[in-house]
Protein backbone atom coordinates (compact mmCIF):
# COMPACT_ATOMS: atom_id res chain seq x y z
CA UNK A 1 0.00 0.00 0.00
CA UNK A 2 1.29 3.46 -0.87
CA UNK A 3 0.91 6.68 1.04
CA UNK A 4 -2.56 7.51 -0.34
CA UNK A 5 -4.39 4.41 0.92
CA UNK A 6 -2.83 4.83 4.37
CA UNK A 7 -4.07 8.41 4.43
CA UNK A 8 -7.53 7.25 3.37
CA UNK A 9 -7.61 4.60 6.08
CA UNK A 10 -6.44 7.10 8.68
CA UNK A 11 -9.07 9.58 7.52
CA UNK A 12 -11.88 7.01 7.69
CA UNK A 13 -10.82 5.95 11.17
CA UNK A 14 -10.53 9.63 12.07
CA UNK A 15 -14.09 10.24 10.93
CA UNK A 16 -15.33 7.46 13.21
CA UNK A 17 -13.47 9.06 16.13
CA UNK A 18 -14.85 12.43 15.11
CA UNK A 19 -18.43 11.14 15.01
CA UNK A 20 -18.30 9.71 18.50
CA UNK A 21 -16.38 12.71 19.77
CA UNK A 22 -18.89 15.17 18.34
CA UNK A 23 -21.74 13.47 20.22
CA UNK A 24 -19.80 13.35 23.48
CA UNK A 25 -18.60 16.92 23.17
CA UNK A 26 -22.08 18.12 22.30
CA UNK A 27 -23.28 16.86 25.68
CA UNK A 28 -20.46 18.66 27.46
CA UNK A 29 -21.06 21.81 25.45
CA UNK A 30 -24.80 21.86 26.25
CA UNK A 31 -24.19 21.49 29.99
CA UNK A 32 -21.38 24.05 29.92
CA UNK A 33 -23.36 26.45 27.75
CA UNK A 34 -26.73 26.36 29.47
CA UNK A 35 -25.75 25.72 33.09
CA UNK A 36 -22.20 27.16 33.18
CA UNK A 37 -21.15 23.92 34.84
CA UNK A 38 -17.88 22.22 33.85
CA UNK A 39 -18.84 18.58 34.15
CA UNK A 40 -15.60 16.76 34.88
CA UNK A 41 -17.60 13.54 35.31
CA UNK A 42 -18.72 13.65 31.67
CA UNK A 43 -16.16 11.04 30.63
CA UNK A 44 -17.45 8.73 33.35
CA UNK A 45 -21.00 9.01 32.02
CA UNK A 46 -19.48 7.93 28.71
CA UNK A 47 -17.77 4.99 30.40
CA UNK A 48 -20.95 4.09 32.26
CA UNK A 49 -22.81 3.98 28.95
CA UNK A 50 -20.23 1.58 27.48
CA UNK A 51 -20.23 -0.68 30.53
CA UNK A 52 -24.04 -0.79 30.58
CA UNK A 53 -24.03 -1.53 26.87
CA UNK A 54 -21.89 -4.58 27.59
CA UNK A 55 -24.21 -5.63 30.41
CA UNK A 56 -27.38 -5.23 28.40
CA UNK A 57 -26.10 -6.79 25.20
CA UNK A 58 -24.77 -9.88 26.97
CA UNK A 59 -28.12 -10.31 28.73
CA UNK A 60 -29.81 -10.91 25.38
CA UNK A 61 -29.18 -14.20 23.63
CA UNK A 62 -29.61 -14.68 19.91
CA UNK A 63 -28.60 -12.30 17.16
CA UNK A 64 -26.18 -9.57 18.33
CA UNK A 65 -28.39 -6.89 16.78
CA UNK A 66 -31.11 -7.55 19.38
CA UNK A 67 -28.74 -7.00 22.29
CA UNK A 68 -27.21 -3.95 20.64
CA UNK A 69 -30.57 -2.31 19.99
CA UNK A 70 -31.60 -2.97 23.57
CA UNK A 71 -28.33 -1.39 24.76
CA UNK A 72 -28.91 1.60 22.51
CA UNK A 73 -32.23 2.19 24.30
CA UNK A 74 -31.44 1.18 27.88
CA UNK A 75 -27.90 2.52 28.48
CA UNK A 76 -28.65 6.21 27.73
CA UNK A 77 -31.82 6.07 29.84
CA UNK A 78 -30.05 4.59 32.86
CA UNK A 79 -27.15 7.04 32.54
CA UNK A 80 -29.61 9.91 32.15
CA UNK A 81 -31.36 8.83 35.33
CA UNK A 82 -28.05 8.64 37.18
CA UNK A 83 -27.16 12.13 35.97
CA UNK A 84 -30.56 13.45 37.01
CA UNK A 85 -30.09 11.99 40.46
CA UNK A 86 -26.62 13.52 40.92
CA UNK A 87 -27.89 16.86 39.65
CA UNK A 88 -30.70 16.89 42.23
CA UNK A 89 -28.56 15.59 45.09
CA UNK A 90 -25.40 17.62 44.55
CA UNK A 91 -25.23 20.28 41.85
CA UNK A 92 -28.51 22.00 42.74
CA UNK A 93 -27.53 22.24 46.39
CA UNK A 94 -24.32 23.97 45.37
CA UNK A 95 -26.42 26.50 43.47
CA UNK A 96 -24.31 25.77 40.35
CA UNK A 97 -21.33 27.68 41.74
CA UNK A 98 -18.66 27.08 39.04
CA UNK A 99 -15.76 26.17 41.32
CA UNK A 100 -17.77 24.08 43.78
CA UNK A 101 -19.38 22.11 40.96
CA UNK A 102 -15.97 21.32 39.50
CA UNK A 103 -14.85 19.83 42.80
CA UNK A 104 -18.15 17.98 43.17
CA UNK A 105 -18.03 16.51 39.67
CA UNK A 106 -14.45 15.38 40.33
CA UNK A 107 -15.94 13.55 43.29
CA UNK A 108 -18.58 12.00 41.03
CA UNK A 109 -15.85 10.93 38.62
CA UNK A 110 -14.11 8.96 41.34
CA UNK A 111 -17.33 7.45 42.64
CA UNK A 112 -18.53 6.25 39.22
CA UNK A 113 -15.06 4.96 38.32
CA UNK A 114 -14.75 3.02 41.55
CA UNK A 115 -18.27 1.58 41.28
CA UNK A 116 -17.47 0.41 37.75
CA UNK A 117 -14.24 -1.18 38.95
CA UNK A 118 -15.97 -2.90 41.85
CA UNK A 119 -18.99 -4.22 40.01
CA UNK A 120 -17.67 -4.61 36.47
CA UNK A 121 -14.01 -5.34 37.04
CA UNK A 122 -10.77 -4.23 35.47
CA UNK A 123 -11.12 -6.22 32.22
CA UNK A 124 -11.84 -4.71 28.84
CA UNK A 125 -14.84 -6.51 27.39
CA UNK A 126 -16.03 -6.51 23.79
CA UNK A 127 -19.56 -6.10 22.50
CA UNK A 128 -20.61 -7.83 19.28
CA UNK A 129 -21.42 -5.35 16.51
CA UNK A 130 -25.05 -5.66 15.34
CA UNK A 131 -23.89 -6.63 11.86
CA UNK A 132 -20.66 -7.67 10.19
CA UNK A 133 -20.28 -6.29 6.71
CA UNK A 134 -17.01 -5.42 5.11
CA UNK A 135 -17.11 -2.75 2.46
CA UNK A 136 -14.49 -3.71 -0.12
CA UNK A 137 -12.26 -0.85 -1.20
CA UNK A 138 -9.46 -1.38 -3.76
CA UNK A 139 -6.77 -1.46 -1.04
CA UNK A 140 -8.49 -2.72 2.08
CA UNK A 141 -11.89 -3.75 3.38
CA UNK A 142 -13.53 -1.24 5.69
CA UNK A 143 -15.96 -2.20 8.42
CA UNK A 144 -19.56 -1.43 7.51
CA UNK A 145 -20.35 -0.94 11.18
CA UNK A 146 -17.87 1.94 11.39
CA UNK A 147 -19.64 3.65 8.51
CA UNK A 148 -22.91 3.09 10.34
CA UNK A 149 -21.43 4.86 13.40
CA UNK A 150 -20.60 7.88 11.29
CA UNK A 151 -24.11 8.06 9.83
CA UNK A 152 -25.79 7.43 13.18
CA UNK A 153 -23.83 10.29 14.73
CA UNK A 154 -24.74 12.60 11.85
CA UNK A 155 -28.39 11.67 12.28
CA UNK A 156 -28.20 12.38 16.03
CA UNK A 157 -26.58 15.75 15.40
CA UNK A 158 -29.35 16.68 12.99
CA UNK A 159 -32.00 15.67 15.54
CA UNK A 160 -30.26 17.75 18.21
CA UNK A 161 -29.97 20.71 15.88
CA UNK A 162 -33.66 20.41 15.05
CA UNK A 163 -34.66 20.23 18.72
CA UNK A 164 -32.45 23.17 19.64
CA UNK A 165 -33.51 25.53 16.88
CA UNK A 166 -37.00 24.47 15.81
CA UNK A 167 -38.88 23.31 18.90
CA UNK A 168 -40.25 24.89 22.05
CA UNK A 169 -37.88 22.81 24.23
CA UNK A 170 -34.95 24.26 22.35
CA UNK A 171 -36.34 27.77 22.70
CA UNK A 172 -36.70 27.33 26.47
CA UNK A 173 -33.15 26.00 26.68
CA UNK A 174 -31.72 28.86 24.66
CA UNK A 175 -33.66 31.40 26.72
CA UNK A 176 -32.23 29.90 29.92
CA UNK A 177 -28.75 29.92 28.44
CA UNK A 178 -29.06 33.54 27.37
CA UNK A 179 -30.37 34.99 30.61
CA UNK A 180 -31.31 32.87 33.57
CA UNK A 181 -33.10 35.57 35.58
CA UNK A 182 -35.20 36.91 32.73
CA UNK A 183 -36.15 33.39 31.70
CA UNK A 184 -37.30 32.71 35.23
CA UNK A 185 -39.29 35.96 35.25
CA UNK A 186 -41.07 34.80 32.11
CA UNK A 187 -42.18 31.65 33.87
CA UNK A 188 -39.60 29.21 32.52
CA UNK A 189 -38.91 26.55 35.16
CA UNK A 190 -35.13 27.14 35.07
CA UNK A 191 -34.65 24.50 37.71
CA UNK A 192 -36.21 21.78 35.61
CA UNK A 193 -34.45 22.97 32.46
CA UNK A 194 -31.10 22.60 34.24
CA UNK A 195 -31.92 19.09 35.41
CA UNK A 196 -33.08 18.15 31.92
CA UNK A 197 -30.00 19.60 30.23
CA UNK A 198 -27.66 17.79 32.62
CA UNK A 199 -29.43 14.48 31.99
CA UNK A 200 -29.49 15.13 28.24
CA UNK A 201 -25.76 15.86 28.19
CA UNK A 202 -25.02 12.59 29.99
CA UNK A 203 -27.35 10.70 27.65
CA UNK A 204 -25.53 12.00 24.59
CA UNK A 205 -22.25 10.77 26.08
CA UNK A 206 -23.79 7.37 26.84
CA UNK A 207 -25.18 7.11 23.32
CA UNK A 208 -21.78 7.85 21.85
CA UNK A 209 -20.31 5.19 24.12
CA UNK A 210 -22.81 2.52 23.02
CA UNK A 211 -21.87 3.27 19.43
CA UNK A 212 -18.14 2.89 20.14
CA UNK A 213 -18.13 -0.33 22.25
CA UNK A 214 -18.30 -2.75 19.32
CA UNK A 215 -15.11 -1.05 18.06
CA UNK A 216 -13.26 -0.24 21.24
CA UNK A 217 -14.37 -2.57 24.11
CA UNK A 218 -15.70 -1.37 27.46
CA UNK A 219 -13.19 -0.58 30.22
CA UNK A 220 -13.56 1.25 33.50
CA UNK A 221 -10.83 3.79 32.65
CA UNK A 222 -12.09 4.52 29.14
CA UNK A 223 -13.66 7.85 30.18
CA UNK A 224 -10.40 9.76 30.51
CA UNK A 225 -9.57 10.31 26.85
CA UNK A 226 -13.10 11.27 25.73
CA UNK A 227 -13.25 13.80 28.57
CA UNK A 228 -10.04 15.54 27.55
CA UNK A 229 -10.83 15.37 23.86
CA UNK A 230 -14.34 16.71 24.46
CA UNK A 231 -12.89 19.61 26.41
CA UNK A 232 -10.62 20.27 23.48
CA UNK A 233 -13.50 20.13 21.01
CA UNK A 234 -15.76 22.36 23.10
CA UNK A 235 -13.04 24.94 23.47
CA UNK A 236 -11.95 24.98 19.86
CA UNK A 237 -15.53 24.97 18.66
CA UNK A 238 -16.62 27.69 21.00
CA UNK A 239 -19.27 27.42 23.66
CA UNK A 240 -22.76 26.48 22.61
CA UNK A 241 -21.93 26.52 18.92
CA UNK A 242 -23.23 23.33 17.34
CA UNK A 243 -21.46 24.05 14.06
CA UNK A 244 -18.21 24.74 15.90
CA UNK A 245 -18.51 21.48 17.84
CA UNK A 246 -18.90 19.45 14.66
CA UNK A 247 -16.09 21.20 12.81
CA UNK A 248 -13.76 20.93 15.80
CA UNK A 249 -14.61 17.25 16.30
CA UNK A 250 -13.80 16.48 12.68
CA UNK A 251 -10.61 18.51 12.91
CA UNK A 252 -9.47 16.76 16.10
CA UNK A 253 -10.62 13.31 15.00
CA UNK A 254 -8.82 13.51 11.67
CA UNK A 255 -5.61 15.06 12.96
CA UNK A 256 -5.46 12.67 15.92
CA UNK A 257 -5.90 9.67 13.67
CA UNK A 258 -3.49 10.84 10.96
CA UNK A 259 -0.73 11.91 13.36
CA UNK A 260 -1.22 8.67 15.31
CA UNK A 261 -0.82 6.61 12.17
CA UNK A 262 2.27 8.36 10.86
CA UNK A 263 4.00 9.38 14.11
CA UNK A 264 2.88 8.34 17.58
CA UNK A 265 -0.44 8.50 19.47
CA UNK A 266 1.21 10.20 22.43
CA UNK A 267 2.64 12.93 20.22
CA UNK A 268 -0.78 13.41 18.60
CA UNK A 269 -2.43 13.94 21.97
CA UNK A 270 0.39 16.20 23.13
CA UNK A 271 0.07 18.43 20.09
CA UNK A 272 -3.74 18.57 20.28
CA UNK A 273 -3.77 19.37 23.99
CA UNK A 274 -1.01 21.95 23.73
CA UNK A 275 -2.56 23.68 20.74
CA UNK A 276 -5.93 23.84 22.42
CA UNK A 277 -4.48 25.34 25.55
CA UNK A 278 -2.99 27.98 23.28
CA UNK A 279 -6.34 28.58 21.58
CA UNK A 280 -7.89 29.11 24.97
CA UNK A 281 -5.11 31.46 25.99
CA UNK A 282 -5.15 33.62 22.89
CA UNK A 283 -8.74 33.28 21.68
CA UNK A 284 -10.90 32.46 24.71
CA UNK A 285 -14.18 32.54 22.78
CA UNK A 286 -13.05 29.62 20.61
CA UNK A 287 -12.59 29.57 16.86
CA UNK A 288 -16.30 29.71 16.04
CA UNK A 289 -17.84 31.07 19.22
CA UNK A 290 -19.15 34.55 19.60
CA UNK A 291 -17.65 36.67 22.36
CA UNK A 292 -18.80 35.59 25.79
CA UNK A 293 -21.21 37.90 27.52
Amino acid sequence: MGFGPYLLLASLEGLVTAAVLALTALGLSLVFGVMRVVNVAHGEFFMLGAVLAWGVSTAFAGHPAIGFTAALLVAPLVVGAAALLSERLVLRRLNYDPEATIVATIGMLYIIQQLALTFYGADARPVQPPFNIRIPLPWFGFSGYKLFVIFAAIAMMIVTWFVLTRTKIGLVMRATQYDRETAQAFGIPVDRVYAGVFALGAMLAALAAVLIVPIQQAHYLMGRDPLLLSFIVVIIGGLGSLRGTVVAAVLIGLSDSIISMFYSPTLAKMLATGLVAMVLVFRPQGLFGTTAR
Partner: protein
Amino acid sequence: MNGAQNSSKVVLLHLAVIGVLLAANFLLPEYHRGVFSRVLVLAVFAMGYNLMFGYTGLLSLGHAMFFAAGMYGAGLPLYHLGWGVPLSFGTGLVAGVGVATIVGLLALRTTGVAFMIVTMMFAQVFYLGSLYFTTWTRGEEGLVLNQQMRSIDLGGTAISLSDPSTRYLIALALFSVILLAILKLVRSPFGRTLVAIRENEERMRMLGYDVFRAKLSAIVLSGLFCASAGAAYAILFGYVGAGFATIQYSILPLLWVLAGGAATTLGPLIGTLFMFYVIDYTSGLTTAYLLFVGVALILLVLFFPKGLLGTIRERWLPWLP
Protein backbone atom coordinates in the same frame (compact mmCIF):
# COMPACT_ATOMS: atom_id res chain seq x y z
CA MET B 1 -1.47 45.61 72.18
CA ASN B 2 -3.76 42.95 70.84
CA GLY B 3 -2.09 42.70 67.42
CA ALA B 4 1.38 42.10 68.81
CA GLN B 5 -0.02 39.59 71.28
CA ASN B 6 -1.72 37.68 68.50
CA SER B 7 1.42 37.84 66.42
CA SER B 8 3.55 36.16 69.06
CA LYS B 9 0.76 33.66 69.69
CA VAL B 10 0.79 32.74 66.00
CA VAL B 11 4.57 32.33 65.84
CA LEU B 12 4.54 30.25 69.02
CA LEU B 13 1.81 28.01 67.64
CA HIS B 14 3.78 27.28 64.48
CA LEU B 15 7.00 26.66 66.39
CA ALA B 16 5.08 24.35 68.72
CA VAL B 17 3.74 22.36 65.75
CA ILE B 18 7.28 21.97 64.42
CA GLY B 19 8.43 20.95 67.91
CA VAL B 20 5.74 18.29 68.18
CA LEU B 21 6.68 16.93 64.76
CA LEU B 22 10.34 16.83 65.83
CA ALA B 23 9.44 14.89 68.95
CA ALA B 24 7.34 12.55 66.83
CA ASN B 25 10.55 11.35 65.13
CA PHE B 26 11.65 9.73 68.38
CA LEU B 27 8.23 8.60 69.60
CA LEU B 28 6.47 7.24 66.55
CA PRO B 29 6.63 3.54 65.67
CA GLU B 30 8.55 2.72 62.49
CA TYR B 31 5.53 2.41 60.17
CA HIS B 32 3.97 5.68 61.24
CA ARG B 33 7.27 7.49 61.05
CA GLY B 34 7.45 6.43 57.42
CA VAL B 35 3.91 7.66 56.82
CA PHE B 36 4.70 10.96 58.54
CA SER B 37 7.80 11.63 56.43
CA ARG B 38 5.74 11.06 53.30
CA VAL B 39 2.95 13.27 54.63
CA LEU B 40 5.38 16.06 55.51
CA VAL B 41 6.70 16.16 51.96
CA LEU B 42 3.21 15.99 50.47
CA ALA B 43 2.05 18.69 52.90
CA VAL B 44 4.67 20.98 51.36
CA PHE B 45 3.02 20.24 48.02
CA ALA B 46 -0.37 21.09 49.55
CA MET B 47 0.98 24.31 51.10
CA GLY B 48 2.29 25.40 47.73
CA TYR B 49 -1.10 24.64 46.23
CA ASN B 50 -2.83 26.53 49.03
CA LEU B 51 -0.87 29.70 48.32
CA MET B 52 -2.47 29.83 44.89
CA PHE B 53 -5.88 28.29 45.55
CA GLY B 54 -6.58 29.39 49.12
CA TYR B 55 -4.91 32.77 49.35
CA THR B 56 -4.97 34.03 45.76
CA GLY B 57 -8.20 32.35 44.69
CA LEU B 58 -6.70 30.79 41.55
CA LEU B 59 -8.15 27.29 41.19
CA SER B 60 -5.55 25.32 39.27
CA LEU B 61 -6.11 21.76 38.09
CA GLY B 62 -2.55 21.32 36.91
CA HIS B 63 -0.36 21.39 39.97
CA ALA B 64 0.93 17.86 39.39
CA MET B 65 2.98 19.56 36.68
CA PHE B 66 4.89 21.65 39.23
CA PHE B 67 5.39 18.70 41.56
CA ALA B 68 6.55 16.51 38.69
CA ALA B 69 8.79 19.28 37.33
CA GLY B 70 10.61 19.29 40.64
CA MET B 71 10.67 15.52 40.67
CA TYR B 72 12.07 15.12 37.16
CA GLY B 73 14.25 18.21 37.52
CA ALA B 74 15.97 16.56 40.46
CA GLY B 75 15.65 12.91 39.48
CA LEU B 76 16.89 13.01 35.88
CA PRO B 77 20.29 14.64 36.54
CA LEU B 78 20.72 12.46 39.61
CA TYR B 79 19.98 9.30 37.65
CA HIS B 80 21.55 10.01 34.27
CA LEU B 81 24.34 12.44 35.04
CA GLY B 82 25.23 11.37 38.55
CA TRP B 83 25.00 14.91 39.92
CA GLY B 84 25.02 15.08 43.70
CA VAL B 85 21.94 15.44 45.87
CA PRO B 86 22.23 19.18 46.67
CA LEU B 87 22.86 20.13 43.04
CA SER B 88 19.98 17.93 41.83
CA PHE B 89 17.65 19.43 44.39
CA GLY B 90 18.65 22.83 43.01
CA THR B 91 17.91 21.81 39.42
CA GLY B 92 14.52 20.55 40.61
CA LEU B 93 13.72 23.98 42.03
CA VAL B 94 14.91 25.70 38.87
CA ALA B 95 12.73 23.39 36.76
CA GLY B 96 9.70 24.18 38.92
CA VAL B 97 10.24 27.93 38.76
CA GLY B 98 10.80 27.77 34.99
CA VAL B 99 7.65 25.76 34.31
CA ALA B 100 5.60 27.92 36.68
CA THR B 101 6.79 31.13 35.02
CA ILE B 102 5.92 29.95 31.52
CA VAL B 103 2.56 28.47 32.55
CA GLY B 104 1.75 31.53 34.63
CA LEU B 105 2.53 33.98 31.84
CA LEU B 106 0.23 32.07 29.47
CA ALA B 107 -2.52 30.86 31.78
CA LEU B 108 -3.00 34.22 33.50
CA ARG B 109 -4.38 35.62 30.27
CA THR B 110 -7.50 33.62 31.13
CA THR B 111 -9.69 33.70 34.23
CA GLY B 112 -12.14 31.46 36.05
CA VAL B 113 -13.18 28.24 34.39
CA ALA B 114 -10.86 28.79 31.43
CA PHE B 115 -7.93 29.11 33.84
CA MET B 116 -8.67 25.71 35.37
CA ILE B 117 -8.96 24.06 31.98
CA VAL B 118 -5.79 25.69 30.65
CA THR B 119 -3.77 24.62 33.68
CA MET B 120 -5.20 21.12 33.39
CA MET B 121 -4.24 20.96 29.73
CA PHE B 122 -0.71 22.22 30.28
CA ALA B 123 -0.34 19.57 32.97
CA GLN B 124 -1.65 16.96 30.55
CA VAL B 125 0.91 18.04 27.94
CA PHE B 126 3.60 17.70 30.61
CA TYR B 127 2.34 14.24 31.55
CA LEU B 128 2.17 13.10 27.92
CA GLY B 129 5.65 14.55 27.46
CA SER B 130 6.97 12.40 30.29
CA LEU B 131 5.50 9.40 28.46
CA TYR B 132 6.79 10.53 25.08
CA PHE B 133 10.40 10.83 26.26
CA THR B 134 10.29 7.29 27.64
CA THR B 135 13.95 6.75 26.73
CA TRP B 136 14.96 9.02 29.60
CA THR B 137 11.96 8.94 31.93
CA ARG B 138 10.86 5.31 31.52
CA GLY B 139 7.26 6.60 31.49
CA GLU B 140 4.79 5.03 33.92
CA GLU B 141 7.34 2.49 35.06
CA GLY B 142 9.60 5.25 36.32
CA LEU B 143 13.17 5.45 37.53
CA VAL B 144 14.35 3.99 40.79
CA LEU B 145 17.16 5.98 42.39
CA ASN B 146 19.33 3.59 44.36
CA GLN B 147 20.77 4.23 47.80
CA GLN B 148 24.22 5.25 46.54
CA MET B 149 22.76 8.08 44.50
CA ARG B 150 20.82 9.27 47.49
CA SER B 151 23.60 10.08 49.91
CA ILE B 152 25.25 13.36 50.74
CA ASP B 153 28.98 13.54 51.24
CA LEU B 154 29.71 15.81 54.20
CA GLY B 155 33.45 16.17 54.69
CA GLY B 156 34.22 12.48 54.26
CA THR B 157 31.18 11.06 56.06
CA ALA B 158 28.34 9.94 53.83
CA ILE B 159 24.83 10.67 55.03
CA SER B 160 22.39 8.16 53.61
CA LEU B 161 18.99 9.60 52.89
CA SER B 162 17.38 6.18 52.91
CA ASP B 163 17.85 5.97 56.67
CA PRO B 164 14.35 6.46 58.19
CA SER B 165 15.43 8.96 60.82
CA THR B 166 17.53 11.08 58.45
CA ARG B 167 14.71 11.00 55.97
CA TYR B 168 12.20 12.15 58.54
CA LEU B 169 14.42 14.98 59.76
CA ILE B 170 15.13 16.22 56.26
CA ALA B 171 11.44 16.09 55.38
CA LEU B 172 10.68 17.99 58.56
CA ALA B 173 13.39 20.56 57.82
CA LEU B 174 11.93 21.23 54.39
CA PHE B 175 8.42 21.38 55.84
CA SER B 176 9.49 23.83 58.57
CA VAL B 177 11.28 26.14 56.16
CA ILE B 178 8.30 26.29 53.79
CA LEU B 179 5.77 26.60 56.63
CA LEU B 180 7.60 29.55 58.18
CA ALA B 181 8.16 31.11 54.77
CA ILE B 182 4.46 30.89 53.97
CA LEU B 183 3.54 32.21 57.41
CA LYS B 184 5.79 35.21 56.83
CA LEU B 185 4.52 35.62 53.30
CA VAL B 186 0.79 35.64 54.03
CA ARG B 187 1.21 38.09 56.90
CA SER B 188 3.28 40.45 54.76
CA PRO B 189 1.78 43.25 52.64
CA PHE B 190 2.26 40.96 49.60
CA GLY B 191 0.16 38.22 51.20
CA ARG B 192 -2.54 40.75 52.06
CA THR B 193 -2.51 41.87 48.42
CA LEU B 194 -3.11 38.31 47.29
CA VAL B 195 -6.09 37.89 49.63
CA ALA B 196 -7.49 41.23 48.49
CA ILE B 197 -7.17 40.11 44.87
CA ARG B 198 -9.04 36.93 45.74
CA GLU B 199 -11.83 38.95 47.31
CA ASN B 200 -12.16 41.65 44.68
CA GLU B 201 -9.76 41.77 41.78
CA GLU B 202 -11.41 44.74 40.08
CA ARG B 203 -11.13 46.92 43.16
CA MET B 204 -7.45 46.10 43.55
CA ARG B 205 -6.87 47.07 39.95
CA MET B 206 -8.68 50.35 40.50
CA LEU B 207 -6.59 51.02 43.59
CA GLY B 208 -3.55 50.87 41.34
CA TYR B 209 -2.12 47.47 42.23
CA ASP B 210 -0.39 45.47 39.52
CA VAL B 211 -2.74 42.49 39.77
CA PHE B 212 -1.10 40.50 37.00
CA ARG B 213 2.31 40.77 38.61
CA ALA B 214 1.00 39.77 42.03
CA LYS B 215 -0.79 36.74 40.60
CA LEU B 216 2.25 35.74 38.57
CA SER B 217 4.42 35.98 41.68
CA ALA B 218 1.94 33.76 43.52
CA ILE B 219 2.11 31.16 40.74
CA VAL B 220 5.91 31.21 40.61
CA LEU B 221 6.20 30.90 44.40
CA SER B 222 3.60 28.13 44.38
CA GLY B 223 5.58 26.41 41.62
CA LEU B 224 8.77 26.77 43.66
CA PHE B 225 7.21 25.25 46.80
CA CYS B 226 5.52 22.42 44.91
CA ALA B 227 8.73 21.68 42.99
CA SER B 228 10.67 21.54 46.26
CA ALA B 229 8.20 18.91 47.44
CA GLY B 230 8.60 16.97 44.19
CA ALA B 231 12.39 17.14 44.29
CA ALA B 232 12.42 16.10 47.93
CA TYR B 233 10.07 13.21 47.17
CA ALA B 234 12.37 11.96 44.42
CA ILE B 235 15.47 12.22 46.57
CA LEU B 236 14.01 10.90 49.83
CA PHE B 237 11.93 8.04 48.45
CA GLY B 238 14.07 7.19 45.46
CA TYR B 239 11.38 7.03 42.84
CA VAL B 240 10.53 9.23 39.85
CA GLY B 241 7.58 8.28 37.67
CA ALA B 242 4.94 9.67 35.33
CA GLY B 243 2.23 8.55 37.75
CA PHE B 244 2.98 11.68 39.79
CA ALA B 245 2.21 13.89 36.77
CA THR B 246 -1.32 12.53 36.23
CA ILE B 247 -4.47 14.54 36.80
CA GLN B 248 -5.03 12.60 39.98
CA TYR B 249 -1.99 14.26 41.53
CA SER B 250 -3.40 17.65 40.59
CA ILE B 251 -6.63 16.81 42.37
CA LEU B 252 -5.12 15.37 45.55
CA PRO B 253 -3.65 18.68 46.83
CA LEU B 254 -7.03 20.29 46.19
CA LEU B 255 -8.61 17.59 48.32
CA TRP B 256 -6.02 17.98 51.07
CA VAL B 257 -6.36 21.75 51.16
CA LEU B 258 -10.16 21.58 51.15
CA ALA B 259 -10.13 19.05 53.97
CA GLY B 260 -7.70 21.01 56.11
CA GLY B 261 -9.04 24.45 55.31
CA ALA B 262 -8.17 26.71 52.41
CA ALA B 263 -6.24 29.88 53.24
CA THR B 264 -4.95 28.60 56.56
CA THR B 265 -1.22 28.03 57.10
CA LEU B 266 -1.58 24.74 58.96
CA GLY B 267 -4.64 23.46 57.09
CA PRO B 268 -2.67 21.69 54.34
CA LEU B 269 -0.71 19.67 56.91
CA ILE B 270 -3.85 18.69 58.81
CA GLY B 271 -5.73 17.90 55.60
CA THR B 272 -2.90 15.79 54.18
CA LEU B 273 -2.43 13.90 57.42
CA PHE B 274 -6.17 13.37 57.84
CA MET B 275 -6.83 12.19 54.27
CA PHE B 276 -3.68 10.04 54.24
CA TYR B 277 -4.75 8.13 57.32
CA VAL B 278 -8.37 7.93 56.19
CA ILE B 279 -7.28 6.36 52.91
CA ASP B 280 -4.73 4.18 54.68
CA TYR B 281 -7.45 2.94 57.03
CA THR B 282 -10.20 2.48 54.44
CA SER B 283 -7.90 0.74 51.98
CA GLY B 284 -7.29 -1.79 54.75
CA LEU B 285 -11.04 -2.40 54.93
CA THR B 286 -11.88 -2.17 51.25
CA THR B 287 -10.03 -1.75 47.98
CA ALA B 288 -12.53 0.89 46.93
CA TYR B 289 -10.56 3.86 48.23
CA LEU B 290 -11.38 6.04 45.20
CA LEU B 291 -15.02 5.78 46.18
CA PHE B 292 -14.07 7.25 49.51
CA VAL B 293 -12.09 10.08 47.94
CA GLY B 294 -15.07 10.91 45.75
CA VAL B 295 -17.57 10.89 48.59
CA ALA B 296 -15.19 12.95 50.72
CA LEU B 297 -14.86 15.59 47.99
CA ILE B 298 -18.62 15.90 47.55
CA LEU B 299 -19.38 15.98 51.27
CA LEU B 300 -16.63 18.53 51.90
CA VAL B 301 -17.86 20.85 49.19
CA LEU B 302 -21.51 20.43 50.21
CA PHE B 303 -21.38 20.64 53.98
CA PHE B 304 -17.90 21.67 55.01
CA PRO B 305 -16.59 24.13 52.43
CA LYS B 306 -14.22 25.78 54.91
CA GLY B 307 -12.44 22.59 55.94
CA LEU B 308 -11.30 21.60 59.44
CA LEU B 309 -9.10 24.54 60.36
CA GLY B 310 -11.24 27.01 58.45
CA THR B 311 -14.24 26.06 60.56
CA ILE B 312 -12.23 26.23 63.78
CA ARG B 313 -10.99 29.67 62.80
CA GLU B 314 -14.48 30.87 62.01
CA ARG B 315 -16.04 29.60 65.22
CA TRP B 316 -13.38 29.84 67.91
CA LEU B 317 -9.96 31.14 66.95
CA PRO B 318 -10.23 34.18 64.67
CA TRP B 319 -6.53 34.95 65.08
CA LEU B 320 -5.36 31.86 63.14
CA PRO B 321 -3.41 32.89 60.07
